[in-house]
C-alpha cells in the first residue's frame, strides 16, 4: 500500500502555529493524499486555521492541561493511531517534538529517523536524508519496519507555503492518559525578554564563539551588532558549554538551524558541529584570528583579524551611518 495518510505533530509558538509545523505540513502535501495535524494545545481554535491553510484537513486537538506538551502528545498520538492508522508522522526536531516522538516510539515499539533534512516517498517506501559530519555527508535511510513511520525533521528543511485549503476542522480528543508520565507538571512559564527577531526567523544572525576572549565581550560585541542590524544573536557550542550564554542561543548540530540572509560568525573557528546549523545561510561573513580556521572555507567574506578589534570599529561605523 502506498503512503496515503500523512500526519504532522503540530506545535504552537506564542499563540500561533509554529513556522516549523507549517513547513512540515507544506511538505506533507507532496508526500500523501490525506494530510492531518495532531495538536496538543489549550487553544486549538486559534491555531487550526493556519494549519488548515497549509494543508491539514483535520486538526486532532488534545488539551495538555498542566502536563508537558510532548508527553501528552505521545499519549494522544498513540490513542489516535489505533483508530485512524496514519502511514507516516512528521515531527519537528524541537524540544516538544522530540519528547512526543520519543514517547510514541517507545509506546508502540516503532523505530524513528531523526535529524532529517529531506524526505521522499516512493510507493510504499519512505526515505529520510540526514546530514552528518557537519553537513559534508548525506546519509539516506529507509524504514523497514511496521507503519506508521516516524520521521523527525530539522526546522528550515522546507519552505512553508499556504496551499489554498480552508481552516482545518478541529476534532477534539478527550481522555488522553499519559499515566505516571503525566505527573510531570508545568507550574510556571518564564518568558525571557527578547529584543528584535527570533534566532530562527531573523534576516541577520550574529553569532559569537571562543574568539571573543571572554563572556563579558558577548553583550557589547555580538548582541550590540545584532541589535544594530535588527538581527538576532547566536552562539557556538563552545561558549554555551562554557556557560557564557544559554543553550537556546546555540547554533549547530545540537542546537538551532538558521538560514538567514546574512550570518556573521565572530570568533568562531567553524567546528563541524557548528557549520551544520548555519551553512545554509545565503551569505556568510567570518571574523577570526586564525587564517586556517575552517569557517573561512564557507565564508563569502572572511576577515583574518582580532574580533575584539574589528567588531568595535564595525559597530562605530554602523552607528555613524545610522545617526
Amino acid at each position: 500500500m502506498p503512503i496515503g495518510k500523512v500526519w504532522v505533530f503540530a506545535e504552537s509558538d506564542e499563540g500561533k502555529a509554529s513556522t516549523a509545523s507549517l513547513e512540515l505540513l507544506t511538505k506533507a502535501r507532496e508526500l500523501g493524499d490525506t494530510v492531518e495535524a495532531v495538536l496538543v494545545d489549550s487553544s486549538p481554535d486559534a491555531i487550526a486555521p493556519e494549519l488548515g491553510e497549509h494543508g491539514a484537513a483535520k486538526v486532532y486537538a488534545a488539551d495538555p492541561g498542566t502536563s508537558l506538551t510532548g508527553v501528552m502528545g505521545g499519549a494522544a498520538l498513540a490513542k489516535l493511531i489505533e483508530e485512524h492508522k496514519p502511514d507516516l508522522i512528521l515531527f519537528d526536531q524541537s524540544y516538544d517534538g522530540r519528547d512526543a516522538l520519543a514517547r510514541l516510539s517507545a509506546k508502540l515499539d516503532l523505530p524513528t529517523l531523526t535529524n532529517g533534512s529531506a524526505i521522499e516517498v516512493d510507493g510504499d517506501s519512505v526515505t529520510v536524508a540526514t546530514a552528518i559530519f557537519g553537513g559534508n555527508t548525506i546519509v539516506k535511510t529507509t524504514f523497514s519496519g511496521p507503519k506508521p513511520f516516524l520521521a523527525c525533521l530539522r526546522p528550515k528543511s522546507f519552505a512553508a507555503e499556504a496551499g489554498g485549503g480552508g481552516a482545518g476542522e478541529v476534532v477534539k480528543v478527550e481522555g488522553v492518559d499519559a499515566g505516571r508520565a503525566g505527573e510531570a507538571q508545568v507550574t510556571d512559564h518564564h518568558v525571557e525578554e527578547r529584543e528584535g527577531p527570533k534566532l530562527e526567523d531573523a534576516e541577520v544572525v550574529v553569532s559569537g564563539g571562543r574568539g571573543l576572549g571572554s563572556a563579558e565581550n558577548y553583550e557589547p560585541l555580538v548582541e550590540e551588532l545584532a541589535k544594530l542590524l535588527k538581527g538576532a544573536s547566536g552562539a557556538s557550542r563552545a561558549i554555551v558549554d562554557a556557560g557564557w550564554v544559554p543553550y537556546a542561543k546555540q547554533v549547530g548540530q545540537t542546537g538551532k538551524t538558521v538560514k538567514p540572509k546574512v550570518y556573521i560568525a565572530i570568533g568562531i573557528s567553524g567546528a563541524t558541529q557548528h557549520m551544520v546549523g548555519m551553512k545554509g545561510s545565503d551569505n556568510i561573513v567570518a571574523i577570526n584570528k586564525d587564517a586556517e580556521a575552517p569557517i573561512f572555507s564557507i565564508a563569502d567574506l572572511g576577515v583574518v583579524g582580532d574580533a575584539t578589534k574589528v567588531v568595535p570599529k564595525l559597530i562605530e561605523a554602523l552607528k555613524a551611518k545610522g545617526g
Partner: protein
Amino acid sequence: MNVLVCVKQIPDPAVPGELDPETKTLKREGKLILDDSDAYGVEMSLQLAEKAGGGEVTLVSMAPNDEVSGLRTALAMGAAKAILVSDPELQGSDSLATAKVIAKAVERAGDVDLVVTATESTDGYTGTIPAQVAELLGWPSLTFAKHVEIGDGKVTIQRQTEAGYDMVEAPLPAVVSVTAGVVEPRYPSFKGIMAAKNKPVDNAKVADLGLSGDQVGWAGARQEIVSIEAAPERQAGEKIEDEGDAHERIVAFLEQLKVI
C-alpha cells in the same frame, strides 16, 4: 538518594569522523572518550547526591569492545560504580534499542531515584533517548533542564523553551535530561583518578538484561541505509587580512546585500 547517570563513550570529536564502508556505521574502533555533553550530567548527579546527604551515583554506558576509558573519567570525578553493556549483538542499535538497554540497566541497578542524561550525544544527537527510557520504565521525563533541584520526594527543573523556560516538577523516580553548561564539571583529582581504577564495573551482555538479540542491533533497528553521498560543497569567497580597516569592507558587503 541514588542517581543513575547515562554516559556515552565516543570517538574524539576533534578527529574527523569516518563511516565504515561495510557496516555504514560510525567507526568507533580507536580510543573512546567521555562525551563532553555527559560531563554535565555526571557533575549534576554528584552535586544532587551530595546535597541529598547520601546515596550513590552509578554510571551506565553502552559501548563496543568493553570500552572503559570514558567510564574511568566519570568514576574519577566521583561516581561510585558503573554498569557497562558491551556486546557484539548491539552493533547497529538505534535510539530505541539503546533506550531498551538503558531501561533494563536501570532495573538491574535497582533502587534508583533519578536517571540523569545529557539532552543528546555529540556523535548521534537524536535527543530522543531520555524520554524513550522514561516511557519504557513508566516514569515521568523532565527534558532539556537547565537547572535541577531535588526535595520532598520530587524533582523540580527549569525546562528550556523557545521563549525562556518553564518550571516543571514531578514525583520521583523520574528521568531528567540536562543541557550543557548547567554546571561546571569538576576535573578529576589525582586521588580520584587512582581510586577510579578500583571502582567496580559490572559487565553485562544483552542476554543478562533479559533482552533478545532481535530487539537490539541491526535486527532491532528496522531501518536500512540506502546511500551515503558527499553533500554539495559551499565555495569560499574573498578572504582579507585585517589591517585596521576590515570593518569598512564588511560595511560595504552589508550595503551591497541591502541589509543596511
